[in-house]
């Protein structure tokens, strides 16, 4: 990435940030050589020795200043490159986070190079606080109520991937009457679902092994039987020791709206695969039509044809279809 390269070039420049950090560098030592009022041979020798030390210190200070000027020039050049790179990447859809970070680094480089003051003097509008993303209307987590919780201090803790898996085909997906016989949390997978779950395990394993680097899994699952079975089949695809922990979390259970709690009849349960927006007629379809696949497909087509229904009707149906399994 060009942005990274520019910054790396700066980091490699002699002096780097380390030199600029020590900018308030004294040109001369505080104790200047003074001519001794009572001149003796001993004082003269001491004075000569002092002069020598001062000269050495001045030489060192000059060298430090030269290094700092070189570093500042390199920082200015890098900042300019970085600005250009950010401007060029501004239209790209991704990744806004990196762009923000890069712009911020450019700000810091310019400050290190002493550009901030001179450009302000030259009439450019200075950003009041370049580090404060709120000034640009952006999210600045330092000022967020969850500041320490929402932003990683150590990037090494970030999981490489987060994989979401919908449970495999359950009996309820095939025949919604299953929900009238078995409680929703205990509806098992079908045979086809079992093989889907094993295939999902293979797919996830292939994904993780593509990196050729060591990996571990931490599995969360909904406590519903169909999820637990799917999770077990996925975990079984990995060698022992890879899955370090499997845990149920009740917050991963299916989300249900108010109407669905407890009292809904199975026939009123719309198909899980139908976009809730597009299902205005589901509730008028009763048990008879929800049994067979052709009927369900016809229902989906019907639902799609009604996609342009009114907002009011959609809102109403959205509330109803929150019981999707």
């Amino acid at each position, binding site marked *: 990435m060009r942005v*990274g390269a520019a*910054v*790396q070039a700066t*980091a490699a420049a002699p002096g780097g940030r380390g030199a600029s950090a020590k900018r308030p560098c004294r040109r001369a030592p505080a104790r200047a050589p003074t001519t001794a009022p009572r001149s003796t041979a001993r004082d003269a020798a001491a004075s000569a020795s002092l002069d020598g030390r001062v000269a050495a210190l001045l030489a060192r200070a000059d060298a430090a200043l030269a290094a700092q000027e070189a570093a500042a020039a390199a920082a200015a050049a890098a900042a300019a490159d970085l600005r250009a790179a950010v401007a060029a990447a501004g239209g790209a*859809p*991704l*990744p*806004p*986070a*990196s762009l*923000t*970070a890069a712009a911020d*680094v450019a700000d*810091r480089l310019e400050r290190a190079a002493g550009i901030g003051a001179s450009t302000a003097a030259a009439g450019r509008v200075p950003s009041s606080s370049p*580090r404060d993303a709120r000034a640009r209307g952006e*999210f600045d987590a*330092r000022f*967020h109520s969850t500041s*320490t*919780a*929402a*932003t*990683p201090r*150590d*990037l*090494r*803790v*970030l*999981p*490489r*991937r*987060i*994989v*979401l*898996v*919908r*449970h495999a*085909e359950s009996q309820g997906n095939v025949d919604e009457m299953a929900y009238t016989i078995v409680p929703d949390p205990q509806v098992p997978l079908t045979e086809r679902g079992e093989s889907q779950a094993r295939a*999902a395990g293979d797919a*996830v394993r292939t*994904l*993780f092994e593509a990196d050729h680097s*060591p*990996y*571990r899994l*931490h*599995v*969360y*699952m909904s406590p519903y039987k169909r999820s*637990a079975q*799917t999770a077990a089949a996925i975990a079984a695809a990995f060698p022992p020791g890879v899955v370090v922990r499997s845990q149920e*979390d009740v917050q*991963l*259970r*299916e*989300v249900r709206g108010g109407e669905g709690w407890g009292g809904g009849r199975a026939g009123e349960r719309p198909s*899980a695969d139908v*976009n809730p927006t597009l299902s205005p007629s589901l509730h008028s379809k009763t048990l008879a039509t929800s049994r067979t696949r052709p009927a369900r497909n016809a229902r989906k087509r019907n639902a799609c044809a009604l996609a342009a229904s009114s907002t009011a009707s*959609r809102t109403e149906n959205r509330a109803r279809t929150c019981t999707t*399994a």
Partner: protein
Amino acid sequence: MTLFEDHLVRDINAGRFGPGTSLVLVTHGLALRIFLMRWFHWSVSDFLQCYNPPNAAPVVLERTISPIAPDGVFDSVDGVFADDAAAVRVHTKALYRLAPASMAVLKGCTERMCYVG
């Protein structure tokens, strides 16, 4: 689901998961879409235009940032930030994006919905 994600993000940032760990969340269709809605800040209409994924089809969120990014870019030393470092202000959720193959699995999901906008 919001609570779950809050807790997950706090767990992640606290170092709950060791190096090289990936997470697998086995859940349900609507719950999965709501997870994505809350993670990527989808609007209600974004959410409604997205369909349930097929049964047992993995939907993958990939980390977009390398823990060993060059020091200068994110002002980190081996991935650890100083208190005032630039990238610290990036929310954990913004460091992930939906993998392109997973976008295809989710009918109705668009490119814009694959990262924290």
